[in-house]
């Protein structure tokens, strides 16, 4: 395994594994509450943070975290208070975030859109020591929330109204989900890039659903897919000199296609098992009685 002899590859693989775990772990709650594209929105907002980081010569990762957390909280507030114009407000937030990023980075001394590219599409091989520290800390936070509060987040994402009647702090949990999603976006930024982050949050969950019947299994399979494709994509990019972000996303979509293909025979087998388990006298097929019964008579 000569690939592990290089320090930059060790860092890249560690970052990739952490992203492979965290992105689907947050994404499953976004998919459950039918906000699958929220990660994409946060990704756009995070661009302003990256631009500001360059302009103020602060760490772009931490600046992006700060700005995308603010953006995610703003999106959640819009969801509460402005239901009717919500989509318009969100659109403005997305594109405002993207335009802000481009503007700030060009205002930064010696900055150009070229600096932005590594954040837009990921740049695993340039992950620095301090990036790894930041990614580890943020990933630990994300895992703590998504696993530690899984029952609460499940209840709120499944049925908000019912969750409120069980006394759960629904608004606080919604805000926490938004913040966790924002943190995940910045964790994944260096690996797959801001424009492709959402794919790693949503597609593994969609792929896992093809096989699973429970939330717990969906969670586990999605994380397994996430880790497999991020490691696979990173290793492939090392040997084949292809961009890791794009490779990871294409692998994820391939996993979705393969699992969908596997799911059809699996569903048929389950249906047969269920039919076999039917109690006698309750036939699975329609049976037309030989003679008509009294109940079949229709009198007006």
């Amino acid at each position, binding site marked *: 395994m000569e690939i592990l002899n290089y320090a930059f590859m060790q860092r890249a693989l560690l970052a990739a594994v952490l992203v492979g775990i965290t992105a689907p772990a947050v994404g499953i709650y976004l*998919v459950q509450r039918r906000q699958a594209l929220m990660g994409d929105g946060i990704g756009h907002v995070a661009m302003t943070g990256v631009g500001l980081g360059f302009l103020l010569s602060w760490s772009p990762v931490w600046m992006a975290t700060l700005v995308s957390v603010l953006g995610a909280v703003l999106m959640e507030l819009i969801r509460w208070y402005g239901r009717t114009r919500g989509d318009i407000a969100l659109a403005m937030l997305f594109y405002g975030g993207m335009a802000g990023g481009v503007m700030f980075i060009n205002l930064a001394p010696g900055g150009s859109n070229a600096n932005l590219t590594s954040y837009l599409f990921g740049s695993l091989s340039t992950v620095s020591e301090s990036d790894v520290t930041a990614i580890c800390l943020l990933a630990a936070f994300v895992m703590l929330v998504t696993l530690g509060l899984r029952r609460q987040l499940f*209840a709120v994402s499944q049925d908000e109204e019912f969750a409120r009647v069980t006394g759960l702090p629904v608004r606080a949990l919604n805000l926490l989900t938004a913040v966790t999603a924002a943190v995940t976006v910045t964790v994944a930024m260096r690996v797959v890039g801001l424009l492709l982050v959402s794919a790693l949050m949503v597609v593994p969950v969609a792929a896992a659903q093809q096989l699973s019947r429970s939330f717990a299994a969906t969670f586990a399979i999605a994380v397994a897919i996430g880790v497999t494709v991020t490691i696979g994509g990173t290793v492939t990019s090392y040997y084949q000199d292809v961009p890791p972000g794009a490779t990871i996303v294409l692998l994820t979509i391939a996993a979705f296609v393969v699992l969908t293909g596997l799911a059809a025979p699996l569903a048929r087998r389950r249906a047969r098992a269920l039919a076999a388990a039917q109690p006698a006298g309750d036939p699975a097929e329609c049976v037309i009685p030989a003679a008509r019964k009294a109940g079949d008579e229709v009198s007006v």
Partner: protein
Amino acid sequence: MTEPVISLRGVRAELGSRPVLRGIDLSVHRGEVVALLGANGSGKSTAVRSIIGQVPVSAGEIELFGTPRRRFRDWGRVGYVPQRTTAAGGVPATVTEVVSSGRLSRTRFGVFRKDDHAAVRRALELVGMADRARDSVDALSGGQHQRVLIARALAAGPELLIMDEPMAGVDLASQEILADTLAEQVDRGATVLLVLHELGPLEPLIDRAVVLRDGCVLHDGPPPEAVGQHALPGHDHVHPHAPAGAEPIRTGLLS
């Protein structure tokens, strides 16, 4: 009279600028089964949703177990069955996973202990869904889905059950199981507030009916007798499942 479990005094609520509740008074006492009846748009769902804090109230007072609703925190005593929504979550979930959500109000920080798992199993047995515990809720019929939502409300072992149209779109077999489950809860001493479109199979359980019209209480007392066509003397009750050729039950005048 015992202390009221639910008490509404002069409750008003608006959706947009349209008044939906125009000063509702309603109290439900311990052990009572009260049906909230009324036509579509009469405000019965809004009234129930105001009790659980889902609809903001512009005037009036709401108390649960003698505590103003804003300060009420003991949600484990309340089991809520929302109107069944066709939209499930975007991720598959098993019957057990959904019912477990109902137990959260009795746990500390959502950590499940042995008796929490047992309570979830017991709630599933009560509605006759224990054999489907590991199935996805997407694979259930409307009636079975409703039974799961009721099990979710029962998982916390509530003293008060609030149900919004529990019989809507539920097949006959499930209706009977639901009526039996509810009867058991009432025997156990549960207090029940039900939103119903019609009394139907739950009629024998109901102590009192509150009828709403245009956001006002029209009737508060014994369940109303059938009105309209059904109440006319001479209205023939033709039972659809009666054996063919059986004579309709003739009540008199018109035939």
